[in-house]
């Protein structure tokens, strides 16, 4: 059974319909890369999965359990619990500037009593090693480069052990020379049953790390398939045009 099932998600902002019925499933341990032009609804989709937006229609299921169904009223506590199934790494990091690197990572595990403060700290240090920042545990966000901040943000999201970790253009806010270190960290997280959804404009990265590619256009999934299928043998004319445009501009 699929770990994540997204069924017919629709979302409008005022009169603009941004998501026009998005459905897909994701297996445990798979990495899904979502590509698509600006304004196609990628961010809105990730935000819906993290319950930062409430879809007007559709359902979200994790592990067969229905977390969201449009029309149902959820309490703050239910929404909060639902969020724990997902993690989100933002384009612009959103680290907490008044906490140091270690505190950024341990804040939520400590407040939500994931484990004892000592254990949370050990876990956090382990994650920092994985993202290559163990030596910066006591630094404050303003003392870090963008790439380092994003790696801390990844560790922070991962510390809550979400079943599905989402990344919204994790390297878009970075100088080109810093994107590599972040993409390497994300690549390194692959495997070990870690399920991830990455919205990205880095086509080579998407090709090399993803098991499944979704190409979104105008609020719908225009094409979905393996990297080979989508990149090398796109069925849709729109996909072909998009990839073509990409080759030209990059």
């Amino acid at each position: 059974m699929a770990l994540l099932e997204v069924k017919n998600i629709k979302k409008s902002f005022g009169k603009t319909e941004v998501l026009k019925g998005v459905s897909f499933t994701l297996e445990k341990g798979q990495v899904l890369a979502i590509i698509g032009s600006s304004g196609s609804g990628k961010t809105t989709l990730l935000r819906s999965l993290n319950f930062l937006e409430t879809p007007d229609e559709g359902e979200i299921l994790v592990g067969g359990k229905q977390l969201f169904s449009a029309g149902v009223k959820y309490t703050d506590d239910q929404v909060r619990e639902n969020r724990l199934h997902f993690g989100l790494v933002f384009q612009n990091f959103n680290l907490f500037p008044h906490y140091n690197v270690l505190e950024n990572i341990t804040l939520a595990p400590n407040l939500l009593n994931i484990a004892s403060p000592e254990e949370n700290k050990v876990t956090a240090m382990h994650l920092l090693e994985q993202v290559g920042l163990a030596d910066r545990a006591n630094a404050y966000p303003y003392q870090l480069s963008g790439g380092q901040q994003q790696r801390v943000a990844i560790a922070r999201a991962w510390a809550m052990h979400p079943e599905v970790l989402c990344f919204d253009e994790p390297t878009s806010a970075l100088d080109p020379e810093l994107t590599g270190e972040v993409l390497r960290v994300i690549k390194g997280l692959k495997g070990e049953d870690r399920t991830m959804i990455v919205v990205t404009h880095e086509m080579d990265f998407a090709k090399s790390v993803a098991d499944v590619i979704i190409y979104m256009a105008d609020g719908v999934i225009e094409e979905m398939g393996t990297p080979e299928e989508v990149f090398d043998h796109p069925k849709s004319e729109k996909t072909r045009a998009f990839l073509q445009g990409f080759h030209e501009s990059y």
Partner: protein
Amino acid sequence: MFIPVTLQLLDGFWESLKVFLLTLAFSLPLGLIVCFGSMSKFSPLKALIKCFVWVIRGTPLMLQLIIIFYGPGLLFDLPAMPRFTATIVAFAINYACYFSEIYRGGIESIAKGQYEAGQVLGLTKGQIFFKIVLPQVIKRIMAPMSNEVITLVKDTSLARIISVYEIIWAGESFIKKGLLWPLFYTGAFYLLFNGGLTLLFGYIEKKLNYYRG
């Protein structure tokens, strides 16, 4: 003459200090409640609180003191509050409204992404507010708060309008005895105390400078 005058002024200053400290103790938290009200999503409440803040900030504290002390008796035939209590009530309400606006400015200056980062980590609204937002707000509002607190020190002298004894009254009482200088001398108390407060706020701001943003 210097020592007895100083002692008498200290006595008056102690009364001013009580007004200052009690006003802070009540208005700092009350201001947060007023602030939440003025940011409420429930628009009738929001409108009511905003209107209230507008009235309090738009009229002199001296007038508010008079109304709170004499108003209940004149309007409803109720017994008046003790003078000192009325002073604290008027000051606390007045300063809560000023503080609420400073808090609101600080809270609204925190980026939406900070809330969302807390939300996606599964934190509760209270945790997000007290652990993520408020600490950053405190740093950002330190400068306007220090201005307001120093104004409060000087405003305590208004209490005498409803006959609450304080330092300027103490200084003035010497005029009857033909001494003018004690009145000017009261200024030294204000200056010293505000100097101390300025140093304290400077110290706090420096302490909060361990991060940027």
